[in-house]
């Protein structure tokens, strides 16, 4: 049992923290938001230069063979700096599908572009009524010759506007909520029949609603078994959840730090408001919530390697519950302790709160995952 980072992991942490300290303060972030697609190509290439975009890929695929802990370190750092760039969509999720199910040819076609920063991906999964159920898929993929024709609508696809390749879940057989009959397809974003409606999200990221109408793709576009890929989707989404947990821990750390600094300096009644016990206790409760979240983020990171898929999912669901509860408390109280200034777009704390809030509603909210743990027979 060991919770310390090893030497290489410490260096990784220093390097990404250093990069973001230099190039990602709140003012710089505002500029990046105005760039095309809402994030900075320059920063993205810096991440590539430091090898961070190749982190989880095997050395054979040109990556660095990093594991869950390495991803946790990066996601925490990205959270702390409130980074806009599509690391989750491209490296964690897109990369996850390629690592777990990509053929050599598919990896050769996509991984180098991810690693050098020239290509980004997006995960087109959510549908109008699917909510958090990954098996609830109405989009269809019908066989045509060697290849497939995809029809359907996908919503809130993060990085959907910029991505070069979409990873699309689609049903190859069965009914809307059947657990089998689901496939995963690599669809070029510029394929004929793909239309996108892009918009900024509440947390300053960018997403798109995507319609696929008679989109024809070749046989090489299938990731894994086209008729039975729910387990693959669950595996990759679990990794995305773990990454979101780590990002949330980074966001909470920074929210707490910013809040504590604020109440130490803000004066009312002639004294720093942080000298009032009611505020001190609130801040202490935020600390407790953030530490419990950090513990569960670590647990989720380690659970990601559990061999038993049910145990893995259960543990990660439990982590998402803890993170959801903690982030809501830390986020809301950070605004409360800031008072009026916390309500303004000008102050950075509100932006942290908004990103935290969106994380709760990504890939299953607190109630959803709590129900999963409850129905799965508990944790003890």
């Amino acid at each position, binding site marked *: 049992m060991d919770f310390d980072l090893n030497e290489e992991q410490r260096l990784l942490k220093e390097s990404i923290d250093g990069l973001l300290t230099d190039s990602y303060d709140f003012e710089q972030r505002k500029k990046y938001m105005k760039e095309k697609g809402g994030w900075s190509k320059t920063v993205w290439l810096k991440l590539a230069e430091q090898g961070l975009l190749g982190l989880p890929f095997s050395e054979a695929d040109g990556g660095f063979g990093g594991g869950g802990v390495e991803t946790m370190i990066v996601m925490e750092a990205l959270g702390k700096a409130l980074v806009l760039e599509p690391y989750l969509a491209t490296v964690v999720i897109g990369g996850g599908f390629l690592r777990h199910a990509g053929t050599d040819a598919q990896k050769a076609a996509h991984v180098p572009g991810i690693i050098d920063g020239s290509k980004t991906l997006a995960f087109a999964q959510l549908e109008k009524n699917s909510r958090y159920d990954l098996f609830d898929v109405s989009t269809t993929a019908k066989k045509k010759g060697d290849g497939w024709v995809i029809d359907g609508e996908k919503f809130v696809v993060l990085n959907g506007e910029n991505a070069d390749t979409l990873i699309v879940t689609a049903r190859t057989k069965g009914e809307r909520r059947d657990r089998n009959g689901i496939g995963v397809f690599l669809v070029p974003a510029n394929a004929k029949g793909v239309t996108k409606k892009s918009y900024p999200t509440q947390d300053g990221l960018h997403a798109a609603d995507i319609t696929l109408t008679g989109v024809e793709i070749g046989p090489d576009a299938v990731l894994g078994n086209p008729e039975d890929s729910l387990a693959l989707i669950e595996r990759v989404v679990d990794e995305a959840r773990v990454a979101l947990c780590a990002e949330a821990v980074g966001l909470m750390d920074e929210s707490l730090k910013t809040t504590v600094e604020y109440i130490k300096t803000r004066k009312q009644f002639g004294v720093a408001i942080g000298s009032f016990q009611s505020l001190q206790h609130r801040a202490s409760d935020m600390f407790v919530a953030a530490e419990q979240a950090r513990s569960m983020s*670590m647990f989720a990171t380690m659970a990601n390697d559990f061999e038993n898929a049910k145990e893995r999912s259960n543990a990660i669901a439990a982590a998402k519950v803890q993170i959801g509860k903690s982030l809501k408390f830390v986020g809301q109280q950070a605004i409360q302790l800031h008072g009026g200034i916390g309500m303004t777009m000008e102050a950075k704390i509100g932006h942290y709160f908004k990103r935290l809030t969106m994380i709760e509603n990504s890939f299953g909210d607190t109630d959803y995952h*709590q129900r999963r743990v409850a129905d799965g027979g508990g*944790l003890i």
Partner: protein
Amino acid sequence: MDLAFTKEEQAFREEVRQFFRDNVPPDTRRKMVEGRHLSKDEMVTWWRILNKKGWGVSHWPKQYGGTGWTSVQHYIFNEELQSYPAPQPLAFGVSMVGPVIYTFGNEEQKKQYLPRIANVDDWWCQGFSEPGSGSDLASLKTKAERKGDKWIINGQKTWTTLAQHADMIFCLCRTDPGAKKQMGISFIVFSMKSKGVTVRPIQTIDGGVEVNEVFFDDVEVPYENLIGEENKGWDYAKFLLGNERTGIARVGVSKERLRRIRDLAGKVESGGKPIIQDAAFREKLAACEIELKALELTQLRVVADEGKHGKGKPNPASSVLKIKGSEIQQTTTELLMEVIGPFAAPYDVHGDDGSNEAMDWTAQIAPSYFNNRKVSIYGGSNEIQRNIIAKAVLGL
């Protein structure tokens, strides 16, 4: 980072568990499961079994009878002990006064007291809190005046846990009334059989008697019963209170209780079916289990940290343990109340002889719920814990 226990640690867990199975008296275990109070004899019998095995004072230095275990082994031992469940060693002797004596006491005192603490030949109690000194402990008034080779002690202590069983007390007494409040306190030990010591039981809301008031009227104590230096008692008290950082979370206790809740919820019916099939109940149970898992991980972080970097600088996360640990313990007793429903009401009509298994489990659930309100009050109330986090961790 690695969550797994080593093979050796797993084997150790099995060894500990097997020892409990073979050696904890079954009736002691039953009473623990049912949340009953144990008699002095039952507790002492078990502690002597533990001490004979060499595990009575496991965390003491080897030269005084400790085991030399790693921090992970201590963690495993405690978890297994709490979740078996079996009584934990008497904290007042083993975790509190023992370490003060072997750290600050003289050779004579070590020889005289330590073996008797380990074998519970002396039952120790703690003389810290006073009627006017709860969270503000340093305001204590009990006086010890030097008179030749004796101390003359006058005053009153309260909340003295299990003082009715005690042979010895360690006491914070004011020895320099002129000094600033933390500075004039000394750490003195003496026999509860001394002339002038009166114990008056306090009945708590669960109906039990765990705590007492203790009065001192001109109690004469030999001067050499002073531990360490005169007027340095506050330092020893802080040392004593900071000593037990991880046990306070009582993760094993809550685990055992959650297993019991799940088991009972599969048997007790609500709406014509077991209450575990009620989605709302099941989610509350899951919520508590998740909180406990997070706490367990937080505790493991602290344990691993101590194992690697020593106990010198506490991990900031350790201050989470008391707050969350007590909240979760309280939640488990609330869930038990929910399971039992209307049968929470009867007072202990069946006695505690174990003869009526069908109903015995219900008797202590309400008292245990009432009793567990104490856990967010004692050991530094949770509000005091929040003050500590604000000052020591957040720098407010």
